[in-house]
């Protein structure tokens, strides 16, 4: 069943439930994310957006006491199947975190980190991966003279784009972003939004955002989460202009959340 070429959805969740010990954090979540599209996850804090995102690259495995029921497929393969290799999964599904988290090494080494752990040693090859990834992350021109400088020394916005470059360097199919601009200033935010627009041509992107305008600007589809459930999911325009559910409307118009 793996990766039939006909399937159009890149990520698919079906009857997904997740528990943190006793806390039921995701309730019967169904979701389909088409290839090369951007899906925004919106909803008040604590409603399970990050939790859902982290089920897709199995980062929740790191948290003690987490139980997952139901199915999550990436590119047609069940990622909670025992035969699934988490390492391979995480190569295919990259993640950008809320707070930029470059490693305490040079800019170059940050980007080369992923390729290196996946076995690439050739210097010229690494050089070209680093250059390409930084270009794709719209950071190359700003940083090409400072590749050997510590990554912790560049600005927050640059750090976040560096983290995106680091993710791109392992050539994922899906990129998960958890509020990637919430720690950044408006100018850096704008740059990252432009970048996402560019990246969606080649990647499937799922992004959590607290910023309604941002969801409107960058995403094709939007899902509204509330208390661990997906209340409504559909084309972004529809969600924002003619929500089917009263609760979605209340949230979007700023009546709560």
């Amino acid at each position, binding site marked *: 069943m*793996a*990766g*039939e*070429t006909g399937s159009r959805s890149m990520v698919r969740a079906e009857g997904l439930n997740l528990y943190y010990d006793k806390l039921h954090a995701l309730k019967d979540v169904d979701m389909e994310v088409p290839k090369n599209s951007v899906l925004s996850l919106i909803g008040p804090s604590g409603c399970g957006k990050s939790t859902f995102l982290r089920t897709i690259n199995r980062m929740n495995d790191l948290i003690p006491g987490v139980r997952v029921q139901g199915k999550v497929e*990436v*590119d*047609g*393969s069940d*990622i909670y*199947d025992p*035969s*699934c*290799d988490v*390492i*391979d*999964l995480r190569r*295919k599904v990259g993640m950008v975190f809320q707070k930029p988290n470059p490693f305490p090494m040079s800019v170059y080494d940050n980007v080369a980190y992923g390729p290196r752990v996946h*076995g690439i040693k050739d210097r010229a090859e690494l050089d070209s991966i680093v250059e390409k990834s930084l270009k794709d992350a719209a950071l190359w021109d700003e940083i090409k003279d400072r590749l050997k400088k510590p990554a912790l020394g560049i600005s927050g916005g640059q750090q976040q784009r560096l983290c995106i470059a680091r993710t791109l360097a392992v050539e994922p199919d899906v990129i998960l972003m958890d509020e990637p601009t919430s720690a950044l200033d408006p100018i850096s935010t704008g740059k990252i939004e432009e970048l996402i627009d560019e990246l969606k041509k080649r990647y499937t992107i799922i992004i959590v955002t607290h910023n309604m305008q941002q969801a409107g600007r960058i995403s094709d589809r939007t899902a509204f989460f509330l208390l661990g459930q997906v209340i409504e999911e559909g084309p972004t325009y529809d969600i924002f202009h003619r929500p089917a559910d009263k609760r979605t409307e209340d949230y979007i118009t700023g009546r709560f959340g």
Partner: protein
Amino acid sequence: MASLTLFPKAGNKASAEKRTERIIKGGLMLCALLSVLVVLLITVMVFKEAWPAIKQQGLLNMITGTSWKPTAAKPRFGLLPMIAGSFAVTALALLIGVPVGLATAIYGAELATVRVAPLVGRMAGILAGIPSVVYGFFGLMVIVPAVRLLGGTGMGVLSAGVVLAMMILPTVISVSEAAIRAVPGEYREASLAMGATKWQTIWHVVIPAAKSGIMASVVLAIGRAVGETMAVILVAGNIPVIPKGLLSATRTLTVNIALEMGYVRPGSLHYSALFAAAAVLFAFIMLINLSVRMITRGGSR
């Protein structure tokens, strides 16, 4: 069609990687188990070597025996003089060292300015780092002659107690200071807001709140004093009799082992009796470790 398989079921690279990870994990676990293994080995070794003497002499006889004459024609292996010696020097060390150490800890955590406070920790660090034998040498050159002014040789309970008091200072200071610092600021504010003076706050609120940490520091200090060898050996006079006063010479369990193990014939009764002394020491240290764990666990609840 050429389908891209994301997760090859028998991908060679992936399974090799997994195997390496498993091997590494196993190796790391062995490293972690090393300390358990060593503790078990030490326990078995001490009691196994001590067993012949205990069996022949009787444990109670040894512990209550007041005469240690291992090389006499009719050898005696009473450990009481050494148990009493360890007890005496430790008690004296606590009597002197705990008040000084605790006061220093209170000073560092509550009274010192931001600039001075780190010096307290630094002092404790250096005191903790000075080798036992240097303390012993200092005691021999400075404390013993001073005590000699009071009469006798100067070597004995008092000198050993004073030297040990210096040596337990860092333990008392650093553990107590950490405990006092861990007391939440709200407690102090609540007390001060009710009009209590700073000293009343420290004495009635902060110290009781830090009680378990302070107790732990004292128990750890007991362990350090009881287990000390090289500093005591140089200043205690080392005569295996029950000390009659502060100026009497004394011999502790540790010193007894260190002095005689060098020339004893392995396998002899004397050798085994030295291990019996070690077993008593060991049991005592285990008791101390256990109390520290109970105190700190009770405190964190």
